[in-house]
């Protein structure tokens, strides 16, 4: 599976879906450094959302956005509630 999707249902959030492109992810873990409550590495050295996806609701929008922006390969994609990609633009 090259793209892993996580639904986000955090109240008041404008982000409805998080996607990790596993082919692009190189396990640099900058996302983990920015938001350890949202991200961890798996044993294949790829970023995954913590607690089997439940961590998708852990961070506020600004922190989640910063964690995606920190990725050196743009492997994290964020979508709004209507399904429109908000990062990378």
């Amino acid at each position: 599976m090259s793209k892993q999707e996580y639904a986000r249902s955090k109240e008041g959030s404008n982000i409805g879906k998080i996607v990790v492109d596993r082919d692009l992810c190189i396990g640099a873990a900058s996302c983990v450094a920015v938001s350890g409550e949202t991200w961890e590495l798996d044993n294949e050295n790829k970023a995954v959302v913590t607690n089997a996806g439940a961590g998708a609701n852990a961070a506020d929008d600004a922190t989640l956005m910063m964690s995606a922006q920190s990725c050196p390969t743009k492997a994290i994609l964020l979508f709004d509630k209507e399904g429109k990609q908000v990062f990378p633009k």
Partner: protein
Amino acid sequence: MQNFKYLMIGGGVAGTTAAETLRQHDKDGSIAIVSDEPRMYSRIMLSKPNFFLGKIPFDNVWLREEKWYIENKIEFIGDSLATKLDTKNKTVELNNGKVLQYEKLLLATGGEARPWPLEGSNKKGICYLRDLSEAKELIENVKTAKQAIAIGSGFVSFEMCEMMRLAGLEVTLIMREPYYWYPLLDEESAKMIEKALTEGGVKILRESEVSEILGDERIEGVILKNGEKIDCQLALIGIGLVCNLDWLKEEGIEINRGILSNEYLETNISDIYTAGDVAEFNYLVLGERVQLGNWVNAQMQGRTAANNMLASSSAEASAGQSKKEFKMVSFYTCIGFGLNIAMSGDVRVKSQPSHEATAGKVECRVIKRGSPESGSFIRIIVDCNDEIIGATFINRTGDLMPINKLIEFNFKVTSHESELSDINFDLKTLLHK
């Protein structure tokens, strides 16, 4: 003369993250970045085979669009080098003669690939991998070479060996050390890596050094100290990093291999900070002054430095920021030849002074988790205070974050050794103890 409230020298991940953090908290203060590159790009992507082999489009390397700088009111002064610092008048002169004045200055100038210290090392086909122009040169050389050598046993050589093999080259790895990544890795872990390299078609020459480079304008081969001759049209040199600090020497900034700073990333000169690969800082996690060259470290130091620049600014600009120490547990990961490898914290297994006056020195000890035979192996390094100080990981990066937390929280290993060594035990459960 232009005056900036915040001036970053260096537009890599440390300088850019700092500028971004400053703008988040100070909406109006003027910010500029001076960089010798066109804009911020992903240096970490340069060593990834997928990038080299065109599987990732070249344009993906750019991490900030030009409009990002405009939208964030960050003046980007590209293709420029800082050449002179005047700490008394708080100015920086650039190579084009332009002089900039600063209120707060961040030195995040990074480093350059350490040159191969041999006669003839300027021949064509001898490549490094530190910046975009070097990456482009390497891409061109990979297209025409049939045989290559890689010098050094670290992350860059490992990833580049894979890239060159995927490109169909015959590759010989030449290293001075008795085994790969010595002395940061143990022999057992190194053998796993060397096995993967060998099975991937790389010939490894241990305890070997090049004594002569052959060829006229272009490298045609090398002669080793033992007299062996190796034909090659490409040499990839990965023997470390050096920082250009000459321009700072006259101004009283304390330097060593890097720019010296305390745990707040403040240099000895007021209002001047440092971050990233160039910072030689007081690292609270290890209790010593170190220089760390990796992406996440640079990114998080950029944030800390910016936070501390804000904290020392006027009350309205500081927006309630207070000074913070940099104390992230540093780590690095890489992938290649079917292995994923990571190191975190202090991986040097060494003698440490004992707190017992009569005991002299005490060795760190190592807890093994998994095994080389099983293909998944972690070494957890424990100091004489019974605390985890570092770890190396092969094919087990899922344990990286829990172990980093245990390092950060000064977790006492006592009575948990069997759990730590049990590969089936979930380390996250220890975080709640």
